[in-house]
């Protein structure tokens, strides 16, 4: 067992983990942050995407001990300080960017990473960036639309609602 300590959503999080404990398991089982979802557990689906030191990673494919000392941001830390939805979350609601919601935490975290490095992406760039996030409900149109809207762009011409 190893002791780990990291900053999760601005707060110190520490615990004892096995070598094999995944970051996703530490967040969910140890810290009770079950917003990070484990869909495929094979690094394909992206439901487990969180930010480690500001970069999007698949938390099912990183060991908890590797995040020792890091700053980790999860879906639970995305809302505004007053508890209201942030601009990306609100856009997902406004544009019906989710149905069952299982993939949504990963979609929002990926979208947030994208908009940080590319504040006004094209539709093609959004679709390309979501290569590693799989949704089995929506067909992606409304997710893409939500992310475009969150970037402040006019989405009235984008197909499907």
């Amino acid at each position, binding site marked *: 067992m190893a002791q780990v300590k990291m900053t999760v959503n601005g707060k110190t999080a520490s615990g004892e983990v096995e*070598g094999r404990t995944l970051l996703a398991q530490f967040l969910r089982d140890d810290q009770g942050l079950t917003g990070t979802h484990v869909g495929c557990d094979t690094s394909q689906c992206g439901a487990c*995407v969180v930010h480690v030191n500001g*970069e*999007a*990673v698949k938390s099912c*494919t990183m*060991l908890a001990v590797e995040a*020792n000392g890091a700053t980790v941001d999860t879906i639970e830390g995305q809302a505004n300080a007053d508890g209201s939805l942030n601009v990306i979350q609100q856009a997902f609601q406004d544009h019906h960017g989710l149905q069952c919601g299982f993939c949504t935490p990963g979609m929002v975290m*990926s979208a947030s990473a994208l908009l940080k490095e590319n504040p006004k992406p094209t539709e093609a760039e959004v679709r390309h960036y979501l*290569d590693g996030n799989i949704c089995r409900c929506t067909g992606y149109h409304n997710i893409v639309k939500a992310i475009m809207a969150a970037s402040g762009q006019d989405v009235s011409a984008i197909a499907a609602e």
Partner: protein
Amino acid sequence: MYNFDVEMPSTVADAVKAMARDEAQPMSGGQTLIPTLKARLAAPSVLVSLTGIDEMKGVCMDDAGRLCIGGATTHARVAAEAAAHYPALASLAARIGDPAVRNRGTIGGSIANNDPSACYPAGALGSGATITTNKREIAADDYFQGMFETALEEGEIVTEVKFPVPTAAHYEKFLQPASRFPLVAAYVAKFGDGVRVAITGASNNGVFRWGEAEAALGANFAADAVAGLAVDATDMISDLHGTAEYRAHLIGVMTKRAVAAIS
């Protein structure tokens, strides 16, 4: 996944020391190895993480004009930092997996694993790169030895890869959309003294140089120069995604497209 100890060295020397432990396994970004451990296809007693070794991270040019990439440098960093020096290689890195995978996966991990469908082996062999380990320097032509086989010895760690920069190059990847690996890809690099063509995703023996295409393109660097060349399908990979014959055909198509993209 079976349990293991994790060592987190911060220098190459400490990593080498940790590798002396019984049944130790080095791990870089872990984007292949962690799924492998989950499937219980590997069961090391000790995992030596290379992600905390700063001296193995970064992109720079050496005095000989080679692009040098530290073994623990992520694909995302290569895509960003190599773009000005060697655009074709940066483009290869930018198309590996997906954005989250590129933020963890590293060049050293890819080169050490030598998956028969991985991108970096094609870039390294196609460029005539030199693989630097904690012990020695190995020419790419001697390094890649078959499917998941390399010249690396037990406990040897890829610390750096040095790429001669060609006058022009292009990586043409026929994407297998589920895995995001290439079904077949061709890396074509044009140097002052000849052309190198490396093919990944196709052969049961892993990445290889397509000598006939190199000779044809050396004489006449044009897409048509490889039009008449046929690839023997005998040793090609055959699976549900494509037959050996299909892959052999794709080798010609990908090479032609890569040449067309350059010229």
